[in-house]
């Protein structure tokens, strides 16, 4: 089964302040993995390392036994999608419609009918159809977060790395998000979720991990 395997990972922004020391973790692509830890423990840093935004680490990260380090962003983006915690930082274009088109086609190809149909469906599901032409700076944090979730649906087949995906969402949207995760789970598609709200998605989680004292430890599930 496809997975990301992290072995003996060590990383520090400043030498005197290590974030990880010989940390190991396996993220199977068909499982929902939950990761928690105190503020500043390195949860977001791990996401940045996995997405290629931080490359100055020691240790190995393999995807299907291939070393992940020399992968370009283009190669990484074919198999994983990472959504940052701050909603606006996931946005590039000026409006949701343009941004989702960019997710689909980049700057290369012209949008076609099937891709605009997919965008329409996704926006309807997340109730953002009316916002599609509104500039991002006029949207609330929760609304921008929904555009991020729409980007996930556009990239449905990739492995999702989600940093606090449900913070800022109302109960209806949390329910929609959980439905999406359930659907994916039945299809054998997993993700990595970082959140402080474990209880909301507890039943969906396959494995839970805790980042503590520069290590990543598996924790027993609560039932």
């Amino acid at each position, binding site marked *: 089964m496809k997975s990301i395997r992290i072995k003996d990972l060590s990383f520090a922004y400043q030498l005197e302040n290590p974030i990880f020391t010989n940390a190991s973790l396996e993220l199977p692509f068909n499982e929902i993995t939950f990761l928690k830890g105190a503020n500043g423990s390195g949860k977001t840093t791990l996401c940045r390392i996995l997405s290629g935004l931080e490359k100055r680490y020691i240790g190995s990260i393999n995807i299907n036994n291939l070393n992940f380090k020399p992968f370009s962003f*283009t190669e990484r983006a074919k198999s994983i999608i990472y959504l940052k915690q701050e909603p606006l930082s996931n946005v590039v274009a000026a409006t949701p419609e343009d941004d989702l088109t960019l997710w689909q086609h980049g700057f290369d190809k012209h949008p076609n009918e099937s891709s605009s149909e997919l965008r329409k469906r996704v926006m309807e599901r997340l109730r953002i159809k009316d916002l599609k032409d509104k500039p991002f700076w006029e949207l609330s944090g929760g609304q921008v977060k929904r555009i991020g979730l729409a980007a996930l649906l556009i990239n449905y087949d990739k492995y999702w790395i989600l940093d606090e995906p449900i913070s800022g969402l109302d109960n209806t949207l949390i329910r929609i998000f959980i439905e999406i995760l359930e659907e994916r789970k039945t299809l054998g598609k997993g993700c990595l979720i970082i959140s402080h709200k474990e209880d909301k998605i507890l039943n969906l989680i396959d494995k839970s991990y805790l980042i503590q004292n520069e290590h990543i430890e598996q924790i027993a599930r609560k039932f």
Partner: protein
Amino acid sequence: MKNTNRKHKNMDSSTLLNLRTIIILVSTITTLSVIYNTILMQISLIFFSIFLLLVIQPSRHRFNRLKHRMKMILRVVISLMVFQILFRHGGEIIWQFGTIKITSLGVNYGVSSSLRLMLIVIIAGLLLDIPYYDYILAFRSWKIPYEISFLVASVIHFIPIFHKQFITSREALNLRGIEISTSTLHKRFKIFSALVFPVIAKAISEVKYRSISLELRAFRLYPERTFIYQAKLKWYDIIIQIFIFIGFVILVFVTYF
């Protein structure tokens, strides 16, 4: 609250001079660069600016940033030089091929304006990274009204916000598998034109929240205000400032009278 002298621990630990002295130095150098529009003067000022950077801010991090900035601007400098040389005509014709001609005035303008642009980039390195609070203190010492000081300092504070916003957008692009560094020039142009407006808008929206928090703190409500620390001039700051003033006056006097 009694004002206290601050032991500069962060940024200022590597800044030898007071910000007021640095501002005077930067203003004088850029003014000289405009007054004396000759290639020799521009080169001399560039060397002097590099010397100042070496003396005032000897930090490896800053030099790496300067190197990066120079690398980024090199294409603009070269393009500017080529356009000036090709399209500004006057003086002696050095080379001609059909309608295309290179004149002595074009070469002079092209080289000197490119060098001036380089000079601005180098000398701006002296002012970057200085906490905006230090700007407020510097302007206050010059008896500039607090509102104006705050306004100017906020503009300086806007630069890192804008820079951060640009990096965030670049990272968002990378996460979509789009890499600016490996893109063709045509694609880069498309990327930048798509990025510029949202980046500026997002940076401005951050400033909007800043202005709201200012209002909430009753900005300008009280005529007097206190400061956490003072930035006093040291003896060598005073000597340098006097020296700059006298030097500048003599130079202008010798040139024009």
